[in-house]
């Protein structure tokens, strides 16, 4: 279903988020190629694809951290393609990062507090009184209340991801962009996390999630978009995606031994992460996606996203 059709079929009604033919080129490399997809309010949408497929770049374009070479992003019925990052956030967009961006020298509680402060207006004059956030309740809900007083750079990776989610929720977003939120979580934590996502969606929040844990993706998503070489190669509900030949080719078509999981994982670990996050070259990789059923292929080098 093409974009124009999708609008027509809904009588001109636009989805909460519409990515409209976005292209991102880094020099000669096309990181995102004519990507088109919608995210509806009150749903969980998955964005999956092999490493280096352009998922994080897509997120950067949607949240405003990367200017697209061409194409548009519509949010809440408005063209936000030229809107700066902070204003998109004010409109109700929130995101987490694949490479953690917690405020390391603040405590976990203060991380969320800052977000609530920013949300209610940075300067006292412009402070909004409405929508006061209960920080402790938020930490409790996400399940990291016990870490509240610890410095954010001393907590485990999985916890830090949940912290980023809590921080995001403090700004009461309409759309949540989650970049690999479950890596670093154990099985029970992942289950709880899935429940939390469903709850949030039930409250009306739209969630777009890049995720490698296929059990989680298949379990919680209403719709899944598959990205490969920067293009959307399939969209549909989990069952349709699971049986889509193009998806199977994208995931399995490159190497048979990828089925084993191991070679792929080693490759991933050596690569020092994803080229999309070009600056952070530290070695504290997120733990590899052990529960992946459709393994990610290759490390993304060679078709990486560079600035």
């Amino acid at each position: 279903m093409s974009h124009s059709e999708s609008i027509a079929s809904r009588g001109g009604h636009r989805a909460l988020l519409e990515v409209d033919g976005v292209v991102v080129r880094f020099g000669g490399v096309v990181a995102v190629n004519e990507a088109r997809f919608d995210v509806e309010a009150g749903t969980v949408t998955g964005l999956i694809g092999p490493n280096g497929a352009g998922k994080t770049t897509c997120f950067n374009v949607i949240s405003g951290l990367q200017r697209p070479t061409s194409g548009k992003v519509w949010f809440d019925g408005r063209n936000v393609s030229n809107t700066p990052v902070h204003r998109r956030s004010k409109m109700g967009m929130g995101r987490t990062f694949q490479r953690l961006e917690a405020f390391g020298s603040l405590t976990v509680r203060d991380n969320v507090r800052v977000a609530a402060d920013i949300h209610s207006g940075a300067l006292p004059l412009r402070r909004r009184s409405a929508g006061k956030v209960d920080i402790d309740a938020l930490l409790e809900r996400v399940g990291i209340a016990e870490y509240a007083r610890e410095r954010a750079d001393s907590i485990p990776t999985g916890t830090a991801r949940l912290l980023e989610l809590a921080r995001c929720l403090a700004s009461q977003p309409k759309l949540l962009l989650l970049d690999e939120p479950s890596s670093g979580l154990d099985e029970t934590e992942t289950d709880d996390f899935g429940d939390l996502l469903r709850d949030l969606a039930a409250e009306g929040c739209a969630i777009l999630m890049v995720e490698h844990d296929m059990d989680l993706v298949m379990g919680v998503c209403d719709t899944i978009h598959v990205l490969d070489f920067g293009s959307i190669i399939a969209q549909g509900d989990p069952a349709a995606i699971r049986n889509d030949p193009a998806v199977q080719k994208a995931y399995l078509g490159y190497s048979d031994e990828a089925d084993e999981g191991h070679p792929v994982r080693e490759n991933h670990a050596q690569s020092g992460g994803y080229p999309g996050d070009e600056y952070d070259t530290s070695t504290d990789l997120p733990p590899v996606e052990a529960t992946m059923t459709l393994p990610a292929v290759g490390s993304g080098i060679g078709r990486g996203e560079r600035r």
Partner: protein
Amino acid sequence: MGSFLAFTIFGLVTGSAYAIAASGLVLTYATTRVFNIAHGALGMVLSFVFWDFSVRQGMPTLLALVLVLGVVAPGIGLLIQRVVARGLGDAPVSVSLVVTVALLVLSIGAATTIWPNEARSISPFFPETSFEIFGGSYITAHQVLTVVLSLLVAVLLYGLLNRTRIGTAMRASVDNPELLKLFGGNPERVAGLAWAIGVSLAGLAGILLVSTVGLDYYALTLLVINAYAAAMLGRLKNLPLTFVGAMTLGLVTSYASGYLPTDGVLNQVRNVIPALFLFAVIVLMPQAQLRIGQVKGIVSAPLPSPLKAGGWGGATLLFVAMVVSVVSEANLLLVGIALTYAMVMLSLVLLTGYGGHVSLSQLTFAGVGALAYIKMGNTGLTGILIAGLVAALSGVLVALPSIRLTGLYLALSTLAFGVIMDKLVFNADIGFGSNGSLNAQRLTLLGTSIESTRVYVWLMAVFFVGMAWLLLLARRGRLGRMLIALRDSQAACGTLGLDARWFRIGLFAVSAGMAGVAGALYAGLRGTVGANDFLYFQSLILLLLAVVFGVTSMTGAALGGTGLMLLPVLQSSYPAVGGLLFVVIAVGAILLARNPNGLSIYLFSLGRLADRRLGDVVRQRLPELPVPGGSLAGARQHARSEHQANEDAERSLGSVGLADDEELLEEGTRVAQ
């Protein structure tokens, strides 16, 4: 027409020398992401080495040139890369800027120590030879050589980057050093080569310019402004555009010196053309994108509880009161100067310690404050306040052009600002007058002017403590949290809805305002002030000392201020060590740059250590007290568990063992009780 041609030729020649310097700057920055503020200073040192070889030791010119550019310069470059600059590209901009500022000060300190101030000159190459060109203009062989060399540098650099394997690696290293490593490249070797070539080019430019500029410690050091004004046109990456920028700058400078009137304000403009050019280019630069990637490894100095801060503030006031009541009039002045510097360093605590930004002209803001205070003629508290506001406004003017750019450009703007203000305002009639000074009145409180210097100095201490309290209050509140958050991750702040640009400008303004208040108080202290009280070079020393003593704590600011006050005192009592002191400060700053908490953090841990060691002894010697449990063993047990709790609390706060918030420690103690 003839003179126009002459000025054009002269402009192209100067432009060629700038181009050589600028291309070295671009090469190092592009391959290692370290912007070398000391680029001009290294050129200065190498010119001195060249003088030493060719004039003092009498080597043949060519031999000296080859030795300097082929051996000494690459050696220095490699040494810097190996010892100082390694890993600096990944560090926050504030760290790499401080390190290269330290290199600059180190170069000047070393040069003044090795080659004490005396008249020296280097004659141009082939001094006898010149060629007549149309219209009766002459071009000297030295000038021809300069142009030819710059073209040669351009061709060789192009060949190196585009035609050789290591050049490809260099270009790859610009994009992603980690990936380069994966493909078998060696980023370290690439960085070493870039530094070696970069320093050689700085030396070549310096040596070519020295016959016109003169062998001077500071004039050649400031060459870096010309070089980066040119490099900025190529966005610090593009070599051809850098050459265009250098030629344009050379021509504009040359025409300005030929056609601008020799009296009035415009006369001074010619000296600041590179800085103005730089501002123009910065304004024209396209918007930079928010940097993704959090800043890691910054451990904040412990934040004292309000009670503790109050106690220390009171103690400081008492201490200063005691000091000012006993010292002589001359030393009284020194205490006042120390307090001035300490206040300026407080403004750096806000800007650099909390905010992660660097200013290379903080004393210039103090000068603006002093000037505003004097010109306003209002000696009440409002006068001080207005001085602060004017300085804050000038801070906004500096920060505004780089609003869309990254922290590096902001810092470079401040350097240009320092030079412009010094030449165009402070030394002009609208300022203190050329080599002149202005008289300032003391502050008037409750209708009485404070004529007693003792009282005035104590009042300055009140201002210092008041500012420190305000800072700590702000740090504890929501603005403080936002500042730290913005320093730790700009991208996250952006996606949470914070407009980092205006926040940064506000931060810069407040910091400049604090420095302005310090400047106004200083004017009152001295009675007469001039441009020499606010030299931009002194701003660099101030920054380094702030880093050495700790730019995150009030203690660091107080100690740093005292240190900066003592510097000229030491230099005048021991003239021989004058330059060496710069070297010591610079080395200290290089060692401590990665830990912005500086020396004062060790002081804090010393205090805690003493408490732990001695506290136990004291507790054990305590007579048997009616504690719960009743026995001495119980009391010991109690003391030990308290100690244990303290340690646990510290350990839980990260490997460095420092509490971000001392309340936590107190909490731990309470729990143990």
